[in-house]
C-alpha cells in the first residue's frame, strides 16, 4: 500500500513514525537502535573520558600467574565495566563500543549500496522488461548460487593491505545483497507500472527514464524501506560472520564477530568474554528485525511473505 499521493513526502514520514510508535516491539527496536548508534558515535568520547581504549595493553589487569583477567567475572570492575581480555588486558567495554562502530558502519553502508543497486536494477528490469529483465534475473541467479563466503575468504587474501578493509567489506557485502532488493523492487514495480498515474505519464509521452524516476521509483518506498531495514541486520551478521571466520576487518580494529571468535578458546575459563560481544551482536540484530517487522506489517503486508526470503 504505497502512499496515495506520489508527489508528497510529508505524509510518508508521519506514517513511518506512527507505524513504529503504534507497535511496541518496533518501538523497542527503534530505541535499542538509537542506543547502539549513540554508543557507536560516542565510543571515542567515552574512551577519552574513561581512559580505556580497545588497543592498549594492560598487564596490570591480568593475573600474573595465568594471564587471565585479574578478579572475578572476567575482571569486571569500576574501571573495566565489561572486564578485560585474557593475555592482553585490553578493555572489553571499549572493544564492544568501538565494535559497534565497525558493525554499524559496514552494515548500514553495505545496505545502502545494495539498496541503491537493487532499486536501480530492479525498477528498470520490472519497468522495461524484455531482455534486460532476463539478464537481471539470470545474474541474480548466478549471485544467489555463488558461495559468497568462499569468495570473501579469497578476496581477503588477494586484496593488498593498502585497500581499506572496511571499504572492501562494504563493497563485497553490498554487492552480494542487491539481487534480493532487486527482486522485491521488480515485483513492486510491476504493480506500480499498472497504476493509472504511470499509464497517464506514458500516454502523455514522457520519456521512459522520466516516468521511471519521477513516477515509478518514488512509489516504491514502502517495500524498499522494509527490505532495507531487514537487510541491515543481515549485513551486520555477515560482517560478524566473516570476522568470526578471520577474514573480516583486520585486527586490532575491534569487531564483534572477531571478539566472539577469540572468546571460543576461553569459553570455559572466561565465559564473560563471549557474553558481552555476543549480547551486543544479538541485540543489534534483534533491534533491526523488530523494527523491520513492525514497518513491514504497517507498510507492506504483501512483501511480508516474499521478503521473508
Amino acid at each position, binding site marked *: 500500500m504505497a502512499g496515495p499521493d506520489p508527489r508528497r513526502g510529508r505524509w510518508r514520514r508521519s506514517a513511518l513514525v506512527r507505524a513504529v510508535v503504534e507497535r511496541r516491539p518496533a518501538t523497542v527496536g527503534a530505541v535499542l537502535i538509537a542506543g547502539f548508534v549513540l554508543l557507536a558515535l560516542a565510543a571515542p568520547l567515552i574512551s577519552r573520558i574513561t581512559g580505556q581504549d580497545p588497543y592498549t595493553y594492560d*598487564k596490570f589487569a591480568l593475573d*600474573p600467574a595465568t594471564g587471565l583477567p585479574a578478579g572475578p567475572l572476567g575482571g569486571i570492575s569500576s574501571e573495566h565495566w565489561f572486564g578485560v581480555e585474557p*593475555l592482553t588486558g585490553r578493555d572489553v567495554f571499549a572493544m564492544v563500543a568501538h565494535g559497534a562502530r565497525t558493525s554499524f558502519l559496514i552494515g548500514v553502508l553495505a545496505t545502502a549500496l545494495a539498496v541503491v543497486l537493487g532499486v536501480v536494477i530492479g525498477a528498470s528490469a520490472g519497468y522495461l522488461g524484455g531482455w534486460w529483465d532476463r539478464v537481471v534475473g539470470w545474474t541474480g541467479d548466478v549471485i544467489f548460487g555463488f558461495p559468497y563466503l568462499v569468495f570473501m575468504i579469497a578476496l581477503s587474501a588477494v586484496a593488498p593491505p593498502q585497500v581499506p578493509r572496511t571499504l572492501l567489506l562494504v563493497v563485497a557485502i553490498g554487492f552480494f545483497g542487491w539481487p534480493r532488493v532487486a527482486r522485491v523492487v521488480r515485483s513492486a514495480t510491476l504493480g506500480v507500472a499498472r497504476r493509472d498515474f504511470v499509464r497517464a505519464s506514458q500516454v502523455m509521452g514522457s520519456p521512459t527514464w522520466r516516468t521511471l524516476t519521477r513516477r515509478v521509483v518514488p512509489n516504491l518506498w514502502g517495500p524498499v524501506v522494509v527490505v532495507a531495514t531487514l537487510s541491515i541486520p543481515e549485513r551486520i551478521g555477515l560482517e560478524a560472520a566473516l570476522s568470526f571466520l578471520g577474514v573480516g576487518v583486520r585486527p586490532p580494529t575491534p569487531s564483534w564477530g572477531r571478539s566472539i571468535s577469540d572468546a571460543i*578458546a576461553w569459553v*570455559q*575459563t572466561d565465559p564473560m568474554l563471549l557474553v558481552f560481544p555476543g549480547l551486543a551482536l544479538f541485540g543489534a540484530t534483534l533491534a533491526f528485525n523488530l523494527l523491520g517487522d513492525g514497518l513491514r506489517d504497517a507498510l507492506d503486508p504483501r512483501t511480508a511473505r516474499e521478503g521473508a526470503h
Partner: protein
Amino acid sequence: MNTHSSPSRRLVLAGLGATSFLAACGANERQGSGSGQSSGSTPTKGGTLTVLVSSTSTNFDPAKSQSLAITSLGLVHRRLTTWKVESGKPAELVPDLATDVGTTSDDGTTWTFTLKDGLMFSDGSPIRAADVKWGLERSFAASFSGGLTYHKDLLAGAAGYTGPFEGARLASIATPDEKTLVFTLARPYGDWGWVASTPAFAPVPEGKGAEADYGLKPLASGPYVVSAVQQGVKIEMSRNEHWSASTDDVRPAYPDSVVFSLGQATDVVSQRLAADSSADQTAFGAGFVSPAQLVQVSSNPSAKGRLVTSESGALAFLALNTRRGPLQDVQVRKAFQYAVDKAAFQVATAGTAALAGEVATTLITDGIAGREEFDLYPTDPSGDPAKAKELLAAAGHPQGLSGLKLLVSQSNNGPAQAQAVQASLAKAGIGVDLQVLDEDAYYAAINTVNADEYDLALASWQPDFPSPNANLQPLFATSAIGNGGYNSARYSSPSVDAAIATAQATVDTDAAAKAWVAVDKAVMADSPVVPLIYTRNSFLRGSKVTNFFIGAFPAYPNYLAVGVSS
C-alpha cells in the same frame, strides 16, 4: 604431498604460539620425569597407543615427508642415521640402518655408509644398499616432491635429475655391493650425517613405489606397518614381524599397535585428554596445548601432572625486510631491537613469561650443541621505547615510522602475538598495519619475493636437524631468499654467505661450532631480525601413556619411545 608435510611444516616452522606449561617452580626439571611418575609404571610391551592429530591427511611416503626423525614417520621407516633423543640431553646423531653415522675419506665430499646385517622389509625381503639408493632417486620424481630436500642440492650431478622411473640413475650414489653406499657430493658438507637422517634416506624396494598413494601402504623398515587406512579418519599400525629389535637402538616399540586419529581439533583434544576418560587414557595429542587450555589444565591437578613441556623450542622472531624503505638502514633496524616488548610478547603467547619460553637474544637455539649465549643489544625484556626513538631520530626519522606492513600467520595465536608487537612498536613511534594470512598463504608470501612485499613478518623457525647450520643457513643465506626459501628478512651479506659456506664445509664438529657462532654474531650485528623467545611447546597425554618425554631438541615428544600401561 600434504601428509606429513603440513603437520611437520607446523612441527618445524610454526613454533609461533607454541606454548608451554611452566609454573614458577620450573617445569624444566619436571618434564623429564612427569610422565613416568603419574602413570606409576615403567614402560611395558603391548597395548594400543592412540595419537590425536589435527590434520586430516597423513601419508607415510618417505619422499613426500618432512617429518622429524622421532615422530610419526619414524615408526614405519628407518633411515641411514637417526637421532637419539633423551630427556634433558641434546639430540645425538646415531646410526640407524647403517653401522655408523658416515665416514668421509677426504674433506667431506665423499661419504661412505655400510648397512647392518639382517635388515628386512615388512614383506621379508632384504634391505639392500640399492633400495636406499632407489628411495633417494625416487624423491627426485615430480610426483613425489614435497619432502625435505637437503640432499637434492648436495648430491653431485643431481641438477635436472627427475627420478629413476624412466630409467635414469644417479651416478653420485654408488652401491659397490649390497651393503655399501658411497655418496659423492657437489661440495664438502660436514653435516651430511645429519642429512642422512631425513625421511628420503628410508629404503624403498628397487623398482617399486611408482604409485601416487604409496604412502598409504609403504613397505616398512621400522617396527610398525600401516595396516589399515580410513582416509581423513584414522591410520592403524600393527607390528612389523620382520623388524629386528637387535639392529635398532632407538625404537623400543612398546605398543603392539599405534592408531593415528585424524582431524581432531587441538583444543578439543586438550579438553578430552584433560578429562582423561577411559578411551583417551592411552592417547596423547600431537598438537600444542593452547594458552587458553593451559590455564584450564593448570587448575586441574590430574591433568597438570600429565602435561609435558619442552625446555626450549623454536626461535620466534620479528623479521625486518632489509630490502624495504627505511629498513634498508641498519641503524633503523637496530632501533627495533630496543622497541619490541618481548615481555608483552611472552604474555600474548602463553599468558606468562614463564609459560611462553625464555627471551631470545641469539639465533642458534637452545639445545643445539655448540651454541654460545650472547646479547648484542642488552635491554629490559619490556623494551626501551625511548632509546628506540633516539636511534630512529639519529637515523633521520625523528617522526618515527608509519604504515609498515606486518605479515603474520593466522595459526597458533599469531594475530594475538602480532598485536602485542604492534602495540609495543607504537610506543616507539613505529606505526604498523597487520596482514593476517592463513598459514599456507603466509608461508607462500615468505617463500616468494614479489613486488608487494611485507615490511615486517612475525616468524618462527626450528631447525630440521640439530645443527647450527640448520638454524642459520635457511634463514640468512642469500640463496634462501624467495624461490621457496625462508629468508624472511631478505638478508643478503656476501661476507656472511662466505662464512656460511666455510662453516658448512667444515667436518670437524668443534671447529664447525665455532664457525657457526661467528656467523650468529655477524648476522645479529646487521640486525635483520629481532629474536623474541625460544618458544616452549606443551603436550598432554592420557594417564596410561608411559615414557612420554621431550628432549632438549626437538621440542616434540619422542614418539618412538612412548608406551602404554595396562
